[in-house]
């Protein structure tokens, strides 16, 4: 796409923001033209969200200011930003689950001191917007009952309803299927045609090149480059983001595994729907020693439930789960004892207790082991020695083993959890089964590479690895077989070579199109290299 030439709608001048010792934004100056799509690119923690949060008034910059149409915006005031025509879709949804879609849209759009709401007119407007931009929503549905894609649409309508002229989208596609993402881009195209300007944040370089006019790259809080989209390439952008080329490990496949021992087996497992999880229907899957089986699917289709069943957190209503031939009850302790390494999806909510010290989290799964406790008392010496080893072996960087775990960055916390999980089987032994749920969410490329290496090593050492991920590239790169989850049902696990991104996307959307055979890449791949 070409760069439109019109006066800037929005200008950020010299923005700096510090969180404690961390400089999240460092003197950033950026402009946005009318009808322009500006992509913000950068590693995790580069400061993208911080920048747009300052722009919207959630955060107050330590230095610098924001101008709309040449007028300075008062800092730290979302109301002023809204009034100036800025609409924002946050990285994490900001919707009230217990309220209706209409309530979520209507809030803040009317003067507070009125005896009644204009609900009827509002509803008509929402329906009109939803028709015009192809954003199907039901105004009276409770937000808590909506799928992720639907919530995304509600967020966008929220901004449109207020007549936003500048739309900020912070990683809007992270949780969408390729098809849903396409329909979002179609909507965007319409909006731009209407004169809207957009700031678009994404980690997906293809997307970025496709929809944006201009790309700004942040690294470590600094604006390192801006490029016209049609004058740059994936390779250049990747290099700019990371500052170096990153080697991604990939699977070398061998066929010997087909005969290997069956380590994990789910037979016709069903779980009824309940608060907090989607139902599973008749899920069957088996994993052999040394293989990696990937589960693809759009968030909210039952992967979480599957992960809970496979980590001993949830008992199926029917069907059996066996590990190495033994039927397993829903008791995490037993799963740990059976040598199952479990990496949960949400590291903050499930993976670690933020308030505990690093060393305490390191031994948390092994409190029953005589090595770490004696007569109910923790053997501090042994425990701390173990934690120190784990921290150095898995390269967990942070304030040391006595620091509260919450002070670790996301990537380092993930390494800690992974390290803990992989050492459940005891010193020098590999786990039998690894269950990893979204293990690389929110990690930067270096950390991703590290995690991938660990999973591959575990498989090579004979573990059966179940990899649940929404990142299709990750699945394609690591998995021997891939199955797709849709509405609580799991397709047959087919060899990775039998899938393409397109067929996977279709299957994730519920279409039953059989995957065409596609050549899989092998060996080592240099990310983004030509």
């Amino acid at each position, binding site marked *: 796409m070409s760069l439109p030439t019109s006066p800037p709608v929005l200008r950020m001048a010299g923005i700096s923001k510090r969180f404690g010792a961390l400089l999240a934004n460092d003197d950033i100056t950026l402009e946005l033209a009318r009808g322009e799509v500006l992509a913000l690119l950068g590693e995790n923690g580069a400061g993208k969200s911080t920048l747009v949060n300052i722009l*919207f008034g959630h955060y107050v910059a330590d230095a610098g200011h924001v101008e709309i149409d040449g007028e300075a915006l008062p800092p730290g005031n*979302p109301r002023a930003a809204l009034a100036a025509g800025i609409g924002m879709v946050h990285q994490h949804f900001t919707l*009230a689950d217990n309220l209706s879609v209409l309530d979520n849209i209507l*809030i*803040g759009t009317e003067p507070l001191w009125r*005896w009644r709401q204009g609900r009827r007119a509002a509803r008509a407007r929402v329906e009109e917007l939803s028709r015009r931009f192809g954003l199907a929503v039901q105004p009276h549905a409770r937000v808590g009952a909506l799928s992720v894609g639907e919530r995304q649409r509600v967020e966008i309508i929220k901004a449109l309803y207020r007549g936003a002229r500048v739309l900020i989208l912070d990683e809007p596609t992270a949780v969408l299927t390729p098809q849903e993402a396409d329909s979002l881009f179609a909507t965007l195209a319409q909006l731009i045609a209407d004169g809207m300007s957009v700031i678009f944040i994404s980690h997906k370089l293809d997307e970025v090149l496709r929809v944006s006019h201009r790309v700004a790259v942040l690294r470590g809080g600094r604006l390192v480059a801006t490029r016209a989209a049609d004058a740059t390439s994936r390779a250049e952008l990747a290099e700019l983001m990371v500052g170096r080329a990153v080697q991604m490990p990939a699977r070398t496949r061998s066929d010997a595994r087909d005969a290997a021992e069956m380590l994990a087996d789910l037979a016709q497992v069903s779980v009824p729907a309940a608060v907090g999880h989607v139902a599973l229907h008749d899920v069957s899957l088996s994993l052999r020693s040394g293989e990696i089986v990937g589960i693809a699917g759009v968030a909210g289709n039952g992967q979480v439930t599957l992960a809970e069943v496979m980590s001993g957190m949830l008992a199926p209503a029917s069907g059996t789960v066996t590990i190495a031939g033994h039927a397993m009850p829903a008791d995490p302790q037993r799963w740990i004892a059976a040598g199952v390494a479990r990496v949960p999806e949400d590291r903050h909510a499930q993976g670690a207790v933020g308030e505990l010290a690093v060393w305490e989290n390191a031994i948390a799964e092994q409190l029953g082991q005589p090595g770490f406790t004696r007569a109910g008392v923790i053997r501090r010496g042994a425990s701390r020695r173990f934690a120190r080893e784990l921290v150095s072996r898995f390269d967990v960087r942070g304030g040391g083993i006595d620091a509260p775990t919450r002070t670790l960055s996301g990537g380092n916390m993930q390494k800690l959890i992974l390290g803990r999980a992989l050492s459940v089987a005891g010193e020098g032994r590999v786990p039998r089964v690894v269950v990893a749920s979204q293990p690389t969410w929110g990690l930067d490329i270096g950390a991703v590479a590290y995690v991938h290496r660990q999973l591959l090593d575990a498989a090579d050492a004979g573990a059966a690895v179940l990899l649940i991920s929404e990142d299709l590239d990750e699945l394609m790169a690591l998995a021997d077989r891939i199955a797709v989850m849709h509405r609580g049902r799991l397709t047959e696990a087919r060899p990775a070579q039998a899938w393409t991104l397109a067929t996977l996307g279709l299957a994730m959307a519920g279409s039953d199109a059989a995957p065409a055979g596609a050549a899989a890449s092998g060996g080592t791949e240099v990310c983004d290299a030509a």
Partner: protein
Amino acid sequence: MELLDIITAAPFWVAVLRVATPLIFGTLGVLLCERAGVLNLGIEGIMVAGAFSGWLAVYHGAPLWGGVAVAAAIGLAFGLLHGWLTVTLALSQHVAGLGVTMLATSLSYYAYRIGFASVSSPPTITPFAPMRWLDGVPVLGSILGPVLGAQTSLTLLALLLAPVIAWLLYRTPLGLAVRMVGENPAAAEGQGIRVGAVRIGAVMAGSALMAVGGAFLTLSAFNAFFFNMINGRGWICVALVVFASWRPGRALLGALLFAAFDALQLRLQQGGASLPGLPPLPYQLYLMLPYVLSIVALILVARRATYPQALMKPYRRGER
């Protein structure tokens, strides 16, 4: 059966409404605070302060409604304090609440003792009169007169408040804002709502209601101020809101139900040995009745309650 005789008699319902009135005010007050995400354990003390200040104003010559206004103003002030502590400073809501209760209670007693250093019996005022004029209203009078006519206008106000607050919460932009900050403050802020202001405002309004509930005791149910006047009524309100699943209509119902148990308890107790089939029970068992039934009711509704998602979670802007 005697039970039936009791609950079908008009005087019983007269008593129920009278016992319920301070609970209705208090429960609606707690409900407002909690809908905005703030637990207000200050209620017990705020009710004391309301009872005292309202009464004091009237004692010094203010009209009765002036006393109510003064109580409400004092409630607003303590609400501001609690809001500042829990919303602006994001302190633990449990402790701030207990602190406010201690402060409001002891300040009231202190002020009372300074004002009335050496009285040998509690000074009194002329309280609200029953709404006997209701008897004269055609049609309505003959239906409502016997029960409502025996109440004061504060009770009528309490009864009307429930639908008004329901309307406010579910039908006005302000109510939506209150519910939103109690469900997801970050989302509210993203839509331009001043989370702190709305929360503090709701806590202040709720506290004003609590204070008026306290004032009912000194200006209507009774005519003097006593130490220990509130006697745990505030805590009951906190329980009633959970029972009501944070809905104004059910809050009204809950308060009436609790009051009915209380009134029934008195009458059963007075029935003494005459209650057929039962040996004369110790009066303490009757007094327990409302509390035990509250717990039972709580257990019955627990599963279905959808509490405000952000309740007791302080919101600090720019923190994640």
